[in-house]
């Protein structure tokens, strides 16, 4: 399951925080994509990976550089391939969030609630406290400090 931080100061010092998912993807993740990325690119962007750095666009079938994936898709792939880092969650749409929340590991940060309607169990970190949440409303409450 993924781990969620809602306060930047709670991110462990040994975990790098990445806010610019586009830049990180273009410079790092794009270089290590493998079979795992194919399904995610198709699920979120409707794009087909047709080469190491090429995708087939869902709009008109043209071949584009992999940097044309959506920021939401890039974020999910960043989290998948670099679970030791914490990535900003803010630019994920609902379709990207659904995939992100289903990952078996990885870490994200956002100071406001970003939850897919169909969520799976996540781990949340606040201060020194860590706990697991399986429910949409409970996670929303945690994020909005209404507990």
């Amino acid at each position, binding site marked *: 399951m993924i781990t969620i931080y809602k306060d930047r100061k709670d991110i462990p010092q040994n975990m790098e925080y990445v*806010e*610019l998912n*586009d*830049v990180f993807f273009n410079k790092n993740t794009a270089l290590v994509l493998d079979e795992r990325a194919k399904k995610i690119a198709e699920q*979120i*962007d*409707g*794009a087909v990976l047709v080469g190491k750095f090429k995708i087939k666009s*869902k*709009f*008109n079938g*043209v071949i584009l550089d992999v940097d*044309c*994936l*959506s*920021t*939401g*898709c890039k974020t999910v792939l960043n989290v998948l391939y670099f679970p030791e880092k914490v990535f*900003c969650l*803010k*630019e*994920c*749409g*609902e*379709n*990207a969030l659904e995939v992100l929340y289903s990952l078996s590991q990885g870490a994200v940060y956002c100071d*406001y609630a*970003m939850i897919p309607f169909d969520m799976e169990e996540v781990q949340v970190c606040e201060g020194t406290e860590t706990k697991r949440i399986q429910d949409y409303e409970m996670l929303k409450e945690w994020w909005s400090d209404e507990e």
Partner: protein
Amino acid sequence: MKSKPIIMDHFFTVHTSYIVNFKFTNNITILTGESATGKTAAFSFIKECMTINPTILCLNYLDYQKNIQELLEKEKGKLIVIDNADILLNDEARKYISLDDNNQYLIIGRNPRNLFATGENLFELVSESKGEQTEFRIEPYL
């Protein structure tokens, strides 16, 4: 927040097989929705128009190191298009935008915080194939 667009109520451009055909009904348009609908592609086509239309200013993550509010305060009479707004705009810049009566805004993002937005400000991108071309329009976000 309901206010009529002060710079333009219609933006149209063509980029090879893509058409951007946006009708604005509000001075602040927040373009939101799922990932991969074409928001950033549309942004890049609008940005191309900066070269021939001086009333357009486009900002995105490449401007991350700049003081966005200072930059906005210097502008007058422009349609300011901001992609990656959720990481580019801090609370102060958002408040400035909500009160700015010198410029019009198209903000691409998901967080309406401090923009004093209502449902009338929220739009999503829709695309339609027209022969070999793809047209992007904006429609109210439900």
